[in-house]
């Protein structure tokens, strides 16, 4: 299948827009201050680049594995685990947990815990050879509800000062990323991408569905496990680096399909990453310069992408 020239130009246009947004983000009202403002913005920009990949990749791959376009890995309970960890830290150690652990310690702890969670849930569920992604989804759903209740309780218990610290963790934002964490995340993401890029053709076959993939000679069980593991790493990185971004994945993935006009992952994945990065930059620009920090990137992204999701659900009469 040859690509028509127009979609190709569209994809380049997406990248051009992202680059333009990045430049605008770096230099808008910066007064060419290369000592403070611009280096700080560069750090945030790096966080957005990593975050964009970490949001787009898992969503698109997860949708391929489930054969469903309205799901994101967020419903599997990762974000709930992250929020519970942050709430418990604040409840038991107070704001001192910030000092005791340091930002890097907290980041490492979050990543390890989420990887452990996904390892446990996969291991436990795939124990007897059952491999039903929907089953996994249901378990994740119930766990999300249970953990959510516990988190709510903790958030209600802590003092307002501690709550505002907690709020910083429970809302996606780019202000809390430190260069050290960024480096660690970049290494993790690069490793995942290196493994993932090799298996892109397999992913294309997986999108045909389980039976087709099996008859085409793909070790379905193994491939699904590998990709779920990669997803777990990326979701862990994105959640601990940025905070929860529940809806964004659905929006990013669906826009990527629409713009790429192709279902080959070689095409959709980079486009998705570009869209995610673009959204992050745009949201950050709006938060900084329009809302003047009266709202957060997380709330804004959830609001816009959520509204879009609702519109999608109401308008489409198609399959889900």
């Amino acid at each position, binding site marked *: 299948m040859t690509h028509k020239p127009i979609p190709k130009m569209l994809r380049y246009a997406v990248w051009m827009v992202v680059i333009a947004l990045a430049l605008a983000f770096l230099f808008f009202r910066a007064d060419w201050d290369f000592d403070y403002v611009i280096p700080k913005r560069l750090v945030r920009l790096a966080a957005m680049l990593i975050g964009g990949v970490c949001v787009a990749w898992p969503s698109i791959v997860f949708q391929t594995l489930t*054969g*469903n376009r*309205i*799901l994101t890995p967020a*419903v599997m309970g990762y974000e709930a685990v992250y929020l519970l960890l942050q709430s418990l830290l604040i409840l038991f150690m107070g704001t001192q947990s910030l000092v005791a652990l340091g930002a890097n310690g907290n980041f490492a702890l979050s990543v390890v815990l989420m990887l452990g969670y996904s390892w446990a849930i996969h291991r436990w569920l795939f124990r007897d050879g*059952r491999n039903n992604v*929907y*089953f996994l*989804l*249901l*378990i994740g*759903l*119930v*766990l*999300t*509800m*249970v953990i959510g*209740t*516990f988190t*709510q*309780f903790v*958030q*209600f218990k802590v003092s*307002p000062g501690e*709550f505002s610290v907690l*709020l910083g963790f429970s*809302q996606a934002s780019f202000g809390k990323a430190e260069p050290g964490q960024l480096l660690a995340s970049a290494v993790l993401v690069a490793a995942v991408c290196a493994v993932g890029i090799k298996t892109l053709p397999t992913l294309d076959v997986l999108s045909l569905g389980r039976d087709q993939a099996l008859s085409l000679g793909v070790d379905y069980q193994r491939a699904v496990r590998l990709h779920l593991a990669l997803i777990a790493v990326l979701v862990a990185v994105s959640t601990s680096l940025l905070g929860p971004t*529940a*809806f964004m994945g*659905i929006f990013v993935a669906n826009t990527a399909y629409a713009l790429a006009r192709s279902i080959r992952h070689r095409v959709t994945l980079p486009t998705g990453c570009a869209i995610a990065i673009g959204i992050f930059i745009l949201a950050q620009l709006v938060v900084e310069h329009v809302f003047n920090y*009266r*709202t*957060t990137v997380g*709330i*804004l992204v*959830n*609001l816009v992408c*959520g*509204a879009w*999701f*609702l519109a999608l*659900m*109401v308008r*489409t*009469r*198609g*399959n*889900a």
Partner: protein
Amino acid sequence: MRAALFGLFIVLCGASLLVGAQQVVWSQVFTLSGDAWLTITASRLPRLMALVLTGVGLSVCGVILQHIVRNKFVEPATAGGLDAAKLGILVALTLLPASGPGVRMLFALAFCFAASLVFVAIVQRIRVKNTVLVPVIGLMYGGVLSAVAEFYAYQHNILQSMQGWLLGDFSKVVQGNYEIIYLILPIVVLTYLYAQRFTVLGMGEGIATSLGLNYRATVALGLMLVAVTVAATVITVGAIPFVGLVIPNLVALHYGDNLGRTLPVVALGGASLLLACDILGRLLIYPFEVPIGLTAGGVGGVLFLLLILWRGR
């Protein structure tokens, strides 16, 4: 079976009256005055009534929603109803800060009803491949509603107190501030009267219409009943997850889906589960108590997980 359930219910009611931080001297109670009598009438009895009514209301709500949506995994918490009620209270608080609980309940009711209508419309439009997706869509839908609420609350700096409203807690239930919960009583009676119609509703729009049911009107009625119950419980005690999910599923496993017959069992089961969770919450860190939202979330969540795993085999 039913007799055993009824017996359990009575025992739990008795236990609920006996447990509490304030020691009750029972010899005083029969004089119908004094401290013990006050404790019983002002705190214990209202709490018992609120618990029973909430349990009955939530489980009946779950059954109605499950018949309307035709999906066993749906309850107000997984259909956006709770988040809509939260948003309604928030709007009432910011628009009319001086309003009483009645006005706030009306807002919660209106938002919850509208949100449920939208949810049902969404679910009926999509051809869903897997039943698990319906609650997932519901949760995401709830997430959208709470994103709106958060956007609003973050600017007014009331996010933390918003978390508080939604956590089910019966410790504030005393004489004088829980009476709204009695709204559930007529709801349950109405549900019982319309039980046959809801059963037919569960067979789908085609069959229901050809059996002579006014499909749209019945759906609207069902959603209205759900909205009133959810609004009344959220205002008085807060959100309690899983009751509307676990009980109807357990009952349906044993007795099937004929609502006329199963409704009493569902109601008793819901009340018993809630009573048990409440007693547990009051004993865990006696003389303090764990909010029932937490115990119900834990117990209900574990029960539901077991149910899924057991059925999955």
